[in-house]
């Protein structure tokens, strides 16, 4: 397995296990690698849209989609662990990535009413809701934190 894949899996498996995103230093220690090499791998994963660094601090992770490196309004519980997702798409992406049932706690973006989405036996439980996309697909990564 190449180095970039090792870094990618270290990031994703650490989040899946701990619910927290590792830093460059964390991954370097875990892999016994040089910090500079891991930093370059973070940048390469960003270019592949598999990671978004924290603005102003490329050693930290803001997003490793579907997971968020910071607290968000989308809390997702899977296998008794609670993760944060970047958006409602990613909120469903967490049980999809972990191949497990899950529960998403979120709010209506306008009314702030609490909403719960449940994934059970591989599909979402019918729930009154809609998902609105404000940004066309071609521009999702222009400012992915906004998207």
């Amino acid at each position: 397995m190449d180095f970039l894949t090792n870094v990618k899996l270290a990031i994703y498996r650490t989040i899946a296990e701990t619910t927290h995103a590792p830093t460059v230093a964390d991954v370097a220690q875990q892999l016994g690698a040089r910090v500079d090499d891991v930093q370059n791998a973070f940048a390469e994963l960003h270019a592949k849209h598999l990671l978004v660094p924290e603005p102003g601090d490329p050693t930290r992770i803001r997003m490793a989609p579907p997971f968020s490196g910071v607290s968000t309004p989308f809390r997702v519980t899977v296998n008794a662990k609670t993760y944060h997702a970047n958006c409602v798409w990613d909120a469903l992406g967490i049980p999809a990535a972990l191949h497990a049932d899950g529960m998403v706690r979120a709010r209506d973006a306008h009314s702030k009413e609490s909403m719960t989405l449940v994934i059970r036996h591989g599909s979402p439980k019918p729930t009154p809701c809609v998902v609105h996309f404000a940004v066309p697909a071609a521009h999702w990564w222009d400012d992915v934190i906004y998207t």
Partner: protein
Amino acid sequence: MLLFRSEETVAEWCAAHELPVRPMITLDQLWVLATEWYSNRLTEESRRPGPAEMQEIFGRIGLTDPFWDPNTV
């Protein structure tokens, strides 16, 4: 993308932010996108779908409007 209880709250949110109402999708459509994007994310082979794959996935769930074209500038 944001979650709303109904199309009415989407319209209210768009009006409050002075934005046009853009496409909406259902929970079942979103689940297809979530599984297509992320079901292999913890594997060696994981990667984001490319533009052609995205269009194929969108088309499969009825999202064929130019809004969903990842190549539109």
